[in-house]
């Protein structure tokens, strides 16, 4: 129900143009779960914001974002505001600042309900309590302010809020990153359970490939504004085709798996500056398996197995082999 075609996002700060997303294609079917993995600066958060046209004014966006057939990028403002939250909603990271500090929780959850008229005004209060119960918070919490809740509780409020208008798609942008490991597991479980129960599609963005591999059906790895590998989540994690995906997978040892702990880890160098990308494959300066071709050809996604793609020259040989 979500189709992204050749999405390009370029920020303009002063006189520099910073291409944050350089041609991304995505497909998410109804009820499916897609993970997007990558380090900071790869463009994944920009991608998330772009899906609902939440980028700052002056940002150049091109391509197609089809939400149930309608192109978000060419919608009228009125239609866009109607689609926001009711069609697709976002769970932001670090709900510390994503919630308004001077409004009570109940009011903030009720706000989209009233705006989109999901339920008649008389039923709003009951619905808010329902939502809070679904995320495991007591009804009286509706009267609390954000600063009175813990990080995990605030994230749960964000989830409740995101589900309020029964959207068809939920985008979780680093929804568990700032949390303690135990809370992280709880919140993840909540998100996956609630979206599965309701058949809501999920796009989950994280830098933790191991988490994505266990919660999502498919995963796409981003680097320097492009997708460099995508395929079934488990497969990409256990046998990555792209060297960067391999490094990312290795960075997060699977708990309980002895072998993963002993694997060589770490990646030298820094992520590239989006304003000054190296020629050819953007990963080539840090890649162990780089060859001469990598710096001269613009490496695009190519088939790397059943339902898998990767943007690496070595894939061609491996597939042929």
């Amino acid at each position, binding site marked *: 129900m979500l189709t992204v075609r050749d999405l390009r996002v370029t920020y303009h700060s002063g006189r520099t143009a910073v291409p944050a997303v350089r041609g991304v294609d995505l497909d998410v079917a109804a009820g499916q779960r897609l993970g997007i993995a990558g380090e900071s600066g790869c463009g994944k958060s920009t991608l998330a*914001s772009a899906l609902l046209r939440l980028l700052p004014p002056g940002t150049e966006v091109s391509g197609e974002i089809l939400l149930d057939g309608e192109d978000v990028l060419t919608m009228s403002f009125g239609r866009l*505001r109607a689609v*926001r939250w009711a069609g697709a909603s976002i769970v932001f990271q670090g709900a510390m600042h*994503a*919630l308004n500090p001077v409004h009570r929780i109940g009011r903030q959850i009720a706000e989209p309900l009233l705006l989109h008229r999901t339920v008649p005004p008389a039923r709003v209060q009951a619905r808010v309590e329902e939502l809070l119960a679904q995320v495991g918070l007591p009804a009286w919490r509706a009267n609390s*302010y954000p*600063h009175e809740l813990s990080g995990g509780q605030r994230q749960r409020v964000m989830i409740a809020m995101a589900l309020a208008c029964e959207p068809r798609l939920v985008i979780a942008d680093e929804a568990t990153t700032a949390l303690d490991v135990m809370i992280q597991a709880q919140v993840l479980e909540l998100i996956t359970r609630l979206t599965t129960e309701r058949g809501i599609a999920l796009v989950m963005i994280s830098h933790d490939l191991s988490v994505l591999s266990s919660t999502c059906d498919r995963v796409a790895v981003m680097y320097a504004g492009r997708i460099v590998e995508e395929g079934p989540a488990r497969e990409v994690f256990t046998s990555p085709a792209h060297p960067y995906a391999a490094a990312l997978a290795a960075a997060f040892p699977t708990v309980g798996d002895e072998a993963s702990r002993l694997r060589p880890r770490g990646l030298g160098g820094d992520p590239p500056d989006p304003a000054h990308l190296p020629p050819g494959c953007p990963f080539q300066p840090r890649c162990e398996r780089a060859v001469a071709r990598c710096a001269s050809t613009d490496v695009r996604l190519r088939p790397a197995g059943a339902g898998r793609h990767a943007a690496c020259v070595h894939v061609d040989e491996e597939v042929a082999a």
Partner: protein
Amino acid sequence: MAKYLATKLGAVTFSLLMVLFSAFFLFRLLGGDPVQNLTRGREVTPEQKAALRRELGLDRPLYEQFLSYLKDTLSGDLGTSFEYDQPVTELIAERFWPTVLLTGTATLLAVTLGLWLGTRAGWRRGSLFDRSQVSLALTLWSAPTFWLGMIMIMLFAVMLPMFPTGGMVNPRVAPGLLNEVLDVAHHLVLPVLTMTAVVYAQYLLVMRSSVLDELGNDYLVTARAKGLRDDLVRRRHAVPNALLPTVTLVFLHLGGIIGGAITVETVFSWPGLGYLAYEALRAPDLPVLQGTFLVFSAAVVIANTAADIIYRFLDPRVRAA
């Protein structure tokens, strides 16, 4: 909460005592010999001076003088005016309400105008509206208040005789409550415009700053993602948060308003406390000067405390602490 108020009360009392002491220090110690001041320009023999000194208690040790001064002031006796031969307290009571009328009206107007324009300007930072508002505010802020008053008089009372050149009432106005009220209102226009013009600029700049501070916050993105219209995002989310520090500053700025009141009342011969202070300056009438000093300072102390308390009530994060 009760403990907090009790602490505040203690602080206010202490500050007011400091004000009393400052007044004593300034006017009794620095002000020179009161007998000298009283008898300035009059033919007085040394014996008469000595008798006067005994009468005023000036031959007693300083701390005794201070104590009797404290006693007198706290029981409402602020001495007798040199010029009017009336108790100072009476004079102050007479002139109190005109000042409140003038400063109250001007403050209300200035706050409303300043906050409204400041919000709009900050929301659309860098726009023509923003830049023109800031330029205008800075220019008006840079002009001496009394000068603006004189310009107003020259333009709208002399060259275009639409308003009176001064005073609060026209002695020849037809009797009747409505006539009297309209008469005062007619006299009020120019002074209020003058004061408002200078004061609103301060509030505009402060509110704009506050809004700019809020602009980067995540909860605004959340609000937009929910599908809220831009002006609702501004009014419902940004403004309540931006108002918090502004409210405090509005109260703290009362000192500046009082300064403005003194000069504006003088220019327009508005029969308030400011004009009284000016007359006392010219005479010189030390008891009245001291009395007005006390009243002004006390008002500012109380306003500052009110600012703290109100901020506490408004900000839910501080309320809990």
